[in-house]
């Protein structure tokens, strides 16, 4: 990182060199090369603290003011208070408002982060989640006093089951990786119930890292399956590795290359013939809602990422939710409690209950009933779109991806950033920056950083690992054609610029709150908290 451009060059690049077609979000850059954001020194809330300031006013002590050490033995009491900041409300609001402006966010700009489905987050969802009947409902409220919540969960279970083509749904897992954990533990329970001890789980070499990590946490050995020249599962390799020690194949379809595996029926047959289960990583479900169902493809267990296909705001890295849908043979083992419907005895209509009486259940994976606030938002989404709207969402997601891919296949881009597998893609696609690196001297990382100066969040970089200098692009259905055109133009501009002077991209970004950060220094001597 010693070859970074001077501040003066930085100013030129930030201020003047963006193409006319690109979105200008950086505004004017002052002399001296710093944006207003960059001038704002990064101070933490602890550094703004001053003894005696406060925001919280404690309610009056309306009960006997007994000395604390008469209530709790002194040895158990804290000697020195935790060094939390001392600030008044105005400074708290200003501090977090100012630092919020050092984030790029989906509401402000295009965020084609592959595999993450950064679609618009409807604001209705925030409103309904905040209703006191939802947000102020205690998780241990008795079932009879939580009928609305249980009904919503029951309906959501039904909807997700229908979308997956699998009849039984548990909403409990907290995110996709948590759903995977549930799924592999269910697989284990299923095999062990039959007296069958298996040792291995197959994952394609294109898999999300969560798949092999989950497999290890569940006590299985990971066995990688290769990819064929078309980007699908290598059937010969799968046949060779599928034996009676294989518990499960974990698959994403469309896969992480954005390709639908046309051999899915054969894959399912191979896996089922050796008695293994087939697990569907639902990260890419946004491509196929109402078009094809994992259950119909032969999958036994599916996880949903409600924060992806069903548009929970991503929150800077959560919260999400990772419900699972399972087939009949897996159902006895599903997590508990389950929301069930019981006919009322007095003719008042259905009654909803939490069912704990599930003797073969693998048990719990977390506290309470799951991320209910996320369920409310996703349920609102499903009710807003309905069957037709969900299908249309997938169709337009695939249309947008193929259109953006077509634009990026134009001359000036394709020779440097060829598509890794030249087929019709689904909701996302992978480009390889290998020729760009070789011919222009800029890496995928450099392209990504220069995109920041153009006001875009870059696509996912360096994943999937199979593709050299990979760029995984997922536009989603909620972006307009104009946005896709402008993004394609920006990529072309950056490549044109790199042809003339690769150092510009190599030293990018220039207009962001900070520029490239020394990640090696951070890892060598980790400073993970403010010294106080």
């Amino acid at each position: 990182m010693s070859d970074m451009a001077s501040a003066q060059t930085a100013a030129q690049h930030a201020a003047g060199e963006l193409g006319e077609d690109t979105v200008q979000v950086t505004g004017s850059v002052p002399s001296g090369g710093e944006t207003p954001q960059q001038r704002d020194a990064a101070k933490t809330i602890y550094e703004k603290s001053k003894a005696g300031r406060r925001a919280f006013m404690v309610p009056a002590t309306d009960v006997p003011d007994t000395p604390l050490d008469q209530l709790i033995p002194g040895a158990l009491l804290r000697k020195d208070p935790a060094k939390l900041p001392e600030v008044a409300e105005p400074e708290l609001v200003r501090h977090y408002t100012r630092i919020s402006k050092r984030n790029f966010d989906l509401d402000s700009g295009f965020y084609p982060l592959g595999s993450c489905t950064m679609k618009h987050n409807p604001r209705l969802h925030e409103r309904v989640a905040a209703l006191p009947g939802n947000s102020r409902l205690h998780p241990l409220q008795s079932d009879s006093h939580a009928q609305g919540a249980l009904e919503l969960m029951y309906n959501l279970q039904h909807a997700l089951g229908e979308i997956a083509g699998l009849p039984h749904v548990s909403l409990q897992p907290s995110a996709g990786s948590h759903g995977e954990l549930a799924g592999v533990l269910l697989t284990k329970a299923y095999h062990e119930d039959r007296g069958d001890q298996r040792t291995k789980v197959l994952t394609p070499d294109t898999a999300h890292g969560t798949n092999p990590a989950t497999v290890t946490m569940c006590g299985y050995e990971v066995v990688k399956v290769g990819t064929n020249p078309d980007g699908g599962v290598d059937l010969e390799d799968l046949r060779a590795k599928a034996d009676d020690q294989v518990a499960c194949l974990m698959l994403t379809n469309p896969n992480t290359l954005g390709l639908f595996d046309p051999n899915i029926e054969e894959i399912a047959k191979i896996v089922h013939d050796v008695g293994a289960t087939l697990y569907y990583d639902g990260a890419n479900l946004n491509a196929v809602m109402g078009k094809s169902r994992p259950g119909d493809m032969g999958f036994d267990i599916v996880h949903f990422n409600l924060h992806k296909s069903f548009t929970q705001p991503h929150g800077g890295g959560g919260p999400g939710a990772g419900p699972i849908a399972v087939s009949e043979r897996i159902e006895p083992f599903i997590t508990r409690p389950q929301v069930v419907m019981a006919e009322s005895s007095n003719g008042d209509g259905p009654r909803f209950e939490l069912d704990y009486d599930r003797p073969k259940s693998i048990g719990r994976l977390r506290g309470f009933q799951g991320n209910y606030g996320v369920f409310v938002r996703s349920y609102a989404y499903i009710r807003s779109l309905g069957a037709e709207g969900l299908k249309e969402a997938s169709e337009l997601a695939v249309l947008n991806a193929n259109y953006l891919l077509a634009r990026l296949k134009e001359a000036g881009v394709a020779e440097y950033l060829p598509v890794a597998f030249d087929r019709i893609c689904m909701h996302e696609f992978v480009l390889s920056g290998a020729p760009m690196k070789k011919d222009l001297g800029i890496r995928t990382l450099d392209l990504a950083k220069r995109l920041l100066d153009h006001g875009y969040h870059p696509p996912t970089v360096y994943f999937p690992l199979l593709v050299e200098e990979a760029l995984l692009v997922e536009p989603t259905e909620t972006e307009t054609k104009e946005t896709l055109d402008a993004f394609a133009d920006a990529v072309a501009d950056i490549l044109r610029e790199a042809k003339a002077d690769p150092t510009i991209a190599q030293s990018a970004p220039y207009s962001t709150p900070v520029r490239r950060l020394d990640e090696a220094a951070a890892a060598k001597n980790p400073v993970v908290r403010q010294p106080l």
Partner: protein
Amino acid sequence: MSEASYPEDLLYHQEHDWVRFEADGETALFGITWYAQDALGEVVFYDAPEVGATLVKDESYAEIESVKAVSDVFAPMSGEVIEVNASISDEPGVINEDPYGEGWLVKVRLTSVEEKDALMDSAAYTTMLG
């Protein structure tokens, strides 16, 4: 960063490790090659084996990490670790700067000296790298 080089007084393993024999012919230093450190990028962490650990030829005995990658380090020969380069823990970047000198990883009492016959010389290793 250092320039690419593959010294002729070392023997090489296909997993990009080198061996330097000590004068006694029974002990040796192990390290990773220029190619390995270049592929990995700036090294930020060395997870060293314990002194006394048994190394088995072709098996991983340590891990080296850069910011975004982890690499297993494979034993080019079998033996027992008699010394670990402790200075690397404080300054892991030395693996990048001087992979054949200050960046050595372990000193090993070899248990099967004849294993050296399976290793490559500098020319063969360079050819393998292509």
